[in-house]
């Protein structure tokens, strides 16, 4: 296949360009930036598509919006001249149209067929050369270099080498035979652990049936034990009961034995009670009879008593108050008489009447009220005259003093002066009072006018009157005349007064004589005391009354004394003993009291003896009845009286025994006690308790075991762990399997790559080495004559100086060897006649080597089209060159 023409619509800097190519060597010459690389990329992009966004390739789409893409016309051995057009289209990679020689239009899918199935990478790897690639050879290791050289003829071998190392690393991370950390190794450990766990659980599950059976056995055992326990408990209860009732049982036995020994009586409690009661009654009654008889004898002595005498004494005693009244009346009368006599004597003495006759005369005088009135009038007259005389004497005395005073003022100049002063002084005083009265009058009138008050008006008038009086007073005559007149007047009055007093004293004497005359009738001696005179009648009258009273009392006193004497005589007669007058009633009372005691005893004894007699009769009757009943009863019971109480006692005893036996019978629940031996019972109980305790222990153990088993079974049956473990195991196993498969796949790939290399070596190497040796010899100008693979699989060269490993060669020689191998490998690909594309790969070669290389390329271009881009015009013929950037 060869490229005939390139038509560029727009690609990078190239626009609307048409380039024709020859079938051999095509050298594109241009300076840097001339567009050599762009042109190279144009070919690749038309063949393999424009770059997508995700590819890190340069985009050559014209910036000015010019039509993108172009066509490449090729001459294909099978399809003839075809045009491949790629322009911007719906796909990012561009729309492809292929026009075949016969005019057939094909789509993109046909492109691969045209290009012999070579993709971009493989095309570049085999048919493209660049300086960078050759430079990179230097850095490769011996082994890598060999691989690269070996693979140079086969696209992507270097990638395979890299892939192998990646896979190796990945596989190592997954698994190492004796590793610990790789994933699978770790998973294996986990799986084994899980497996172990599962086995354990499985054993547990297998154990389940055994444990379940065991549970059955234990449950049955427990059931049996429970029955045994119940039996033991019953027995124990029986013996406990026996033990509890043992004293009763023994007592019952004893009582029954005792009962058999005793005689039997047919008594009732009523019999005994009645018999005893009656016997006691009889005894009590006999005792009572005796007591009563004794009492009767004593009471009989109280019957000697004089009832009549006792009655008289009581009557006399009833008069005791009269006696006492009389006694005190006598005493009082005596005292009163004595007092009266003394009072009278005193009155008589006051009146001056000493002798008895005079006294009697006075007592017989009329002292009526009329007489007294008359006497009183006389006394008043005398007193009136006395008072007048006394008054006149006083006035006379006063006049005498006034006269002396007046006579004293009329004498001296000094006295006159003093009088004048006094007058002036008085005048000023009067004037001041006048002023005050005038002012007050005005004030009161104003007030009355204001208040319309009559009292203020009156006060006003009063003030006016005062004023007027004082004014008039001033008008009086001179003082000296006034005094003379007065003295004269006073002397006249004094004389008159003396006259009046004489007359009155005359009258006074008259009255006094009349009064004395009356008094003569009552008294032998005259009296002058006027005070006594006024009381005279009262006193006489009192004396007369007292004499009367005294007389009456004397009569009473005699009467009382008479009565007392009579009483004493009667008492003496009754009590038959000498009396002391004053104590007669005390003696009588003593006597009566004694008799009263005796009288009580007497009455009592009388009543008592009567009652005793009745009772005695009753008692003897009752006793007779009782004794009859007793005899009858004893006869019935066939007993002697002296046997009765012993019989009762025995009967009581048997009764008690029977009661007790009944009680015991009530309490005893055991019908047939196996034994009555306490020790035996105790031993049996202990034995039973022991057995029960042992059984309990056994049961406890069994129950615990049962509970544990139940828990275990319950737990085991509900334990989800086993299922979970299985799932976990499967989870891990799946993960492990995944890893294992990945590991196996990685290993398989490694093996496949290894095999590919071997195959390459074995199949292609001989021919490749032949051609490579030829090219290498030429390129090195026969300095090296052989290129081969040694026994270790590494490349070696052989020349004039001997054999060398590839790595031992100089850089240029290494590159020559590489290029020789590449050309040789390309030769083998006769079924893919694609052109070589070279981008100044040998720019670093020296002139000699460069020329050799160009010569070889020219030679190679005979068989395969070569498109060579360079910036060096030397060494090339103008016919060979297509110059870029000049048109």
């Amino acid at each position: 296949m060869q490229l005939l023409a390139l038509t560029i619509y727009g690609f990078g800097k190239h626009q609307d360009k048409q380039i024709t190519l020859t079938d051999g060597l095509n050298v594109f010459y241009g300076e840097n930036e001339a567009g050599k690389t762009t042109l190279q990329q144009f070919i690749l992009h038309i063949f393999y598509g424009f770059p997508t966004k995700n590819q890190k390739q340069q985009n050559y789409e014209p910036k000015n919006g010019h039509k993108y893409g172009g066509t490449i016309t090729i001459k294909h051995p099978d399809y003839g001249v075809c045009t491949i057009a790629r322009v911007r289209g719906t796909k990012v990679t561009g729309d492809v149209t292929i026009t075949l020689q016969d005019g057939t239009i094909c789509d993109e899918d046909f492109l691969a067929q045209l290009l012999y199935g070579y993709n971009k990478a493989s095309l570049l790897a085999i048919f493209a050369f660049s300086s960078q690639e050759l430079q990179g050879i230097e850095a490769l290791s011996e082994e890598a270099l060999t691989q690269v050289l070996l693979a140079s003829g086969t696209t992507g071998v270097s990638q395979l080498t890299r892939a192998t190392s990646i896979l190796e690393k990945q596989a190592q991370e997954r698994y190492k035979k004796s590793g610990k950390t790789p994933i699978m190794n770790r998973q294996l450990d986990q799986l084994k652990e899980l497996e172990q766990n599962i086995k354990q659980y499985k054993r547990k599950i297998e154990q389940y049936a055994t444990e379940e059976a065991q549970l059955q056995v234990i449950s049955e055992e427990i059931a049996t034990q429970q029955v045994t326990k119940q039996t033991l408990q019953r027995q124990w209860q029986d013996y406990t009961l026996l033990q509890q009732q043992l004293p009763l049982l023994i007592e019952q036995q004893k009582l029954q034995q005792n009962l058999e020994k005793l005689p039997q009586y047919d008594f009732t409690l009523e019999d005994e009670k009645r018999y005893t009661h009656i016997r006691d009654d009889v005894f009590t009654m006999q005792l009572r009879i005796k007591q009563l008889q004794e009492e009767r004898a004593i009471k009989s002595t109280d019957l000697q008593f004089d009832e009549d005498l006792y009655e008289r004494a009581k009557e006399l005693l009833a008069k005791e108050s009269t006696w006492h009244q009389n006694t005190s009346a006598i005493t009082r009368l005596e005292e009163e008489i004595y007092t009266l006599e003394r009072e009278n004597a005193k009155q008589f003495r006051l009146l001056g009447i000493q002798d008895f006759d005079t006294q009697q005369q006075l007592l017989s005088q009329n002292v009526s009220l009329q007489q007294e009135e008359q006497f009183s009038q006389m006394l008043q007259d005398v007193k009136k005259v006395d008072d007048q005389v006394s008054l006149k004497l006083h006035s006379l005395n006063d006049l005498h003093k006034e006269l002396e005073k007046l006579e004293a003022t009329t004498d001296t100049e000094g006295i006159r002066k003093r009088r004048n002063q006094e007058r002036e002084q008085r005048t000023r005083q009067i004037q001041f009072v006048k002023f005050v009265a005038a002012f007050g009058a005005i004030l009161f009138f104003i007030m009355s006018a204001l208040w319309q008050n009559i009292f203020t008006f009156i006060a006003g008038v009063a003030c006016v009157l005062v004023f007027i009086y004082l004014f008039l007073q001033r008008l009086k005559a001179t003082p000296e005349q006034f005094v003379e007149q007065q003295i004269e007047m006073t002397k006249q009055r004094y004389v008159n007064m003396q006259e009046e007093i004489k007359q009155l004293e005359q009258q006074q004497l008259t009255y006094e004589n009349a009064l004395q005359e009356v008094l003569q009738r009552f008294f032998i001696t005259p009296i002058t005391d006027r005070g006594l005179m006024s009381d005279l009648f009262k006193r006489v009258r009192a004396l007369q009354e007292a004499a009367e009273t005294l007389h009456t009392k004397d009569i009473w006193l005699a009467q009382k004394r008479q009565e007392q004497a009579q009483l004493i005589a009667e008492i003496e007669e009754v009590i038959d003993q000498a009396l002391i007058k004053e104590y007669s009633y005390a003696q009588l009372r003593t006597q009566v009291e004694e008799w009263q005691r005796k009288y009580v005893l007497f009455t009592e004894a009388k009543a008592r003896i009567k009652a005793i007699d009745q009772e005695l009769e009753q008692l003897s009757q009752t006793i007779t009845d009782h004794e009859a009943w007793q005899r009858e009863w004893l006869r019935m019971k066939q007993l002697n009286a002296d046997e009765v109480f012993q019989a009762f006692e025995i009967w009581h005893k048997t009764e008690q025994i029977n009661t007790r036996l009944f009680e015991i019978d009530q309490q005893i629940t055991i019908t047939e006690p196996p034994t009555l031996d306490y020790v035996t019972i105790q031993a049996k109980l202990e034995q039973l308790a022991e057995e029960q305790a042992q059984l309990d222990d056994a049961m406890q153990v069994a129950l615990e075991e049962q509970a544990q088993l139940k828990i275990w079974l319950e737990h085991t049956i509900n334990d989800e762990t086993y299922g979970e473990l299985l799932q976990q195991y499967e989870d891990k196993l799946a993960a492990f399997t995944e890893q294992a498969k990945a590991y196996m796949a990685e290993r398989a790939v490694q093996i496949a790559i290894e095999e590919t290399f071997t195959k390459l070596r074995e199949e292609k190497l001989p021919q490749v080495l032949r051609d490579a040796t030829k090219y290498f010899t030429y390129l090195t100008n026969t300095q090296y004559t052989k290129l081969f693979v040694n026994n270790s699989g590494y490349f070696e060269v052989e020349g004039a100086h001997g054999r060398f490993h590839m790595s031992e060669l100089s850089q240029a020689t290494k590159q020559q060897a590489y290029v020789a191998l590449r050309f040789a490998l390309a030769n083998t690909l006769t079924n893919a006649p694609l052109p070589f594309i070279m981008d100044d790969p040998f720019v670093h070669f020296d002139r000699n080597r460069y020329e050799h290389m160009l010569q070889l390329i020219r030679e190679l271009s005979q068989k395969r089209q070569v498109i060579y881009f360079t910036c060096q015009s030397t060494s090339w013929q103008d016919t060979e060159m297509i110059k870029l950037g000049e048109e």
Partner: protein
Amino acid sequence: MVRFLHAADLHLDSPFKGLSNLPDHLVKMIRNSTFEAFNNMITYAIEQQVDMVLIVGDIYDGENRSLQAQKYFVDGMQRLQKANIRAVISYGNHDHLGGKWVRFNLPSNVDVLGNEVETKKLHINDEVIYIHGFSYPERHIKQKMIDEYPVAQQNGLHIGMLHGSLAGDESHDVYAPFTKQSLLNKKYHYWALGHIHKRQILHETPPIIYPGNIQSRHRKEQGEKGFYDVHLQDDECHYQFIRADVVRYEQVVMDGTPIRYANDVTAICHKALQTVRSQGAAIVELRITNLTEEGHALWQQTSPMEWLALLRESEADETPMVWVASVTCDAPKEALTKASEQVLALIDDWDEERWQEVLGELYQQANVTRFLPQYQTIQIDEMKAQVKETFLQTMRNK
């Protein structure tokens, strides 16, 4: 007329296989899933007041049966007893009678078929029902037990219970093999089969049915799981599949054409997962196809584990739970180098023997090999695909 439920392969309390790194709550749910599925069936039986329940083998998962599983089963049977529902059960290869494991007493409403073919005669709704079948006396029954089954002769309804595999089916180990014709020859009214976990109707009239298991236990047991509700009257038979599963396993393929950006991935996946979710809780393997070159470029930027984590996180709060077990996309149509092509060609050329050599490394190590899936169970095709993908993935990792 008799109405019964036909179920098989309960595998109670068996772990869900082939899932790793499940979060705790999911482990719990998945672990309980067999119980719940069983519970669903019992509840259905009681609610629908069916006459009896047939369980054709593999009630428990063999040696690993837990006590809880048995307790749960007994509880279920007791519930049936209370509802006056009979049950006829047989044991299969997983829970054969030869096993030395604890056996719980079953209530009186349960008839257990013995270790030789026998006929249980039941009187239900004035019908006489003959149930023929057997329980596995040991793990492996290779002989044709079908030959022992009697041909239906008496009047009444005849039901065959058989835990085994169709002769000639190489995908499973051979257990009590039979042919369809051999079953038909018995002239039964219904054949209740068990053993195969995938639901299948082998024959319409009379029905020969594998109900499948009631709950998926493996990523390969996909789709809805449950039992059959069967009405049987004379020669007429109506049956209906009833779902019982709690969590189902699904593979979902999505068209990735519109994917341009990362959120397109989550959106498309979420849409697909919502559809799955509408049918209840599930574990899902997602596969994205038809990715464009751009889509692939996007996909490559993030590792598959990261994509998975992202999806799981974005779906975490949704209910019912749908767990994304894996997410993959078809390999891109990528231009391969000659070398790569050669490697792939080489892998394709490996024969079985070579494969055994290639994969044999781990199998030769005693402490590893016992945890590996049996070599025979490894699908070379799958392995080949994985190896190729590993290779390409490595090559892509520039």
